[in-house]
């Protein structure tokens, strides 16, 4: 819940997160650049600039793969959510690694000629009509532009300026970037290699991304409670736990999070106003639901963040029919107060039969 924009609002978890990611990237590059040439022992080693370009390019691909695996992993197992927490830091890091790769390529393969290197990059290979020999650099350029756009707009300022739905849609560019990188690698280095270890790793990485996304999608689809009719069923009364939510999917695709707090039910949008994080996976802390992604908080009765914060999410009306909790699909304007619905009193326990004196079973 930001009230002012500063480059990065640090906290201990962010330091740890960035340190882990940096350590991984540094280890990858160090091993690739300084350890493996000793192992390879070629008579004439790969030219240093080319090895650098390959190391940073391969690292960017691996980083992108990890980034795209974090999302579905967190949807399949909530324990991965902390890895999602500052994923955009990892994304910015990836953009810098990819930019370094592009720098080595541009200043080596496309330098030393009478042409400007950027011009040379675009005209040196014009075999657009063929697959083998296609100027695969174009896919790399596209992917790099996507990554730079994502990195430049990763700050909360852009989130606020663009609004979360637009921001989130813009950041789906990561998928376009990944497909472009896959095409870039497939039409480039993969076709040149004799050693297929890289090919296998590339396929494993891309396969992991696809399988995890499919698994998460199938899981959510099986759990979706899309129902027809004016009121949508959420869950049975007895299924609610105090402090947590049940999520219902409406016919229009929106998701509603219905919370049980202190014996009363309230419903708000499942999408956090910050980054559309899944509020329904959050928990009530200090009478406020806390988003599992970045800790934004809302009062579930009116969908408002506590002062001085100003974020608001839509609320929904609830009713209980029999032992089923139902939600009305028409959202109230963000921040609208809705009277919580108390859970019905459990039926009184039947009094045990008291045997009469002297009676026998």
């Amino acid at each position, binding site marked *: 819940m930001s009230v002012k924009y500063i480059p990065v609002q640090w*906290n201990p*978890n962010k330091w740890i997160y960035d340190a*882990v*990611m940096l*350590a*991984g990237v540094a*280890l*990858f590059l160090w*091993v690739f650049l300084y*350890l*493996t*040439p000793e*192992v*390879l022992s*070629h*008579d*004439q*080693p790969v*030219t240093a600039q*080319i*090895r650098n370009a*390959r*190391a940073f390019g*391969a*690292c960017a691909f691996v980083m992108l793969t*990890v980034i795209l695996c974090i999302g579905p992993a967190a949807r399949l197992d*909530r*324990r*991965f*959510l*902390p890895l999602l*927490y500052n994923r955009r830091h990892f994304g910015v890091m990836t953009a810098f690694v990819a930019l370094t790769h592009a720098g080595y390529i541009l200043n080596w*393969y496309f*330098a030393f*000629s*009478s*042409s400007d290197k950027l011009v*040379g*990059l675009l005209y*040196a*290979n014009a075999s657009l*009509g063929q697959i*083998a*020999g296609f100027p*695969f650099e174009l896919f790399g350029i596209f992917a790099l532009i996507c990554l730079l756009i994502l990195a430049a707009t990763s700050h909360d300022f852009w989130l606020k300026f663009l609004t979360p739905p637009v921001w989130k849609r813009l950041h789906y560019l990561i998928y376009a970037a990944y497909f472009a990188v896959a095409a870039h690698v497939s*039409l*480039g*280095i993969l*076709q*040149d*290699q004799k*050693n*297929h*270890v890289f090919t296998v*790793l590339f396929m494993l990485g891309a396969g992991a991304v696809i399988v995890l996304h499919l698994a998460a999608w199938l899981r959510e689809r099986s759990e979706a409670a899309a129902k027809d009719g004016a009121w949508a069923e959420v869950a049975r009364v007895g299924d609610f736990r105090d402090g947590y939510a049940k999520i219902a999917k409406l016919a229009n695709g929106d998701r509603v999070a219905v919370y049980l707090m202190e014996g009363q039910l309230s419903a708000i949008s499942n999408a956090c106003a910050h980054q559309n994080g899944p509020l329904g996976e959050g*928990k009530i*802390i200090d009478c406020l639901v*806390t988003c*599992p992604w*970045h800790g934004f908080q809302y009062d579930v009765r009116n969908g408002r963040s506590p002062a001085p914060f100003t974020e608001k999410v839509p609320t929904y009306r609830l009713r209980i029919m029999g032992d089923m909790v139902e939600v009305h699909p028409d959202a109230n304007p963000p921040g609208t107060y809705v009277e919580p619905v108390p859970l019905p009193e459990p039926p009184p326990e039947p009094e045990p039969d008291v045997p009469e004196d002297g009676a026998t079973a």
Partner: protein
Amino acid sequence: MSEKPFFVGYLPAPGPLRTFLLTACVLLIAGLGSAGFLMGAAQDDPGPGAFRFDYGRQTVTGVVELTPYPILHVTEGNDRIQPGDSFLMTAGGKSGVDSRAEPLAGQLAQVSGVVLERGDLYMLQLRGGRNGLQAAEGEVPEITAEPQGRWKLAGEICDGKCLAGAMRPGRGLAHKACANLCLLGDVPPIFVSTQPVLGEEFLLVTGPGGTRLPRAAYDYVAQFITAEGEITKRGDLLVWEIDVDTIEVTP
């Protein structure tokens, strides 16, 4: 149902989650390190080509012939470059020496530069200006061209400089744009034959009738192709006049 640990970004990680996160972090770092090792260790051998700065600067004299790419037929050599050798020349960067060689076509010239060597293929990267290529005094021997007939060859068109060792590796599809840029800069193109041709693996490749490699052939640079053309032996160098219409990409 048991209480699940809940992570809030600005609060310390809950105890039960710490072990999981620590394990995930260690695995992530180790995974990146392992990927770096496997990917780094999967680099193919770029071959024996290299700049031979260790040989020192080479200065020899010979006859300049335009094929149309400039060749030097050595008449006065040194310890490494013998009389009778024929080699290709290039300038620094992605540039040929055409503008300097053309006024000296058919004449005796002294050249000086650094050797690029890859097996039987070698090339001289000339020093700049007159220090690299200048007219020399002396009798000009006659250079004869020996036709070797029409050949169908399989292999790859590369730029001679990167292939000879300016870049390691200096061939293959990933190198295609760079090779084209070299060729556009008048670096001589080389055909790497999959089988030795008249004892040679590398041939200078030109267009028919002593013309430059046609632009239409640039689409096939760095790909495995078959094509037909006349081979001529000039000094100890084979020159293949490729017939672009016969080029076929080998699957």
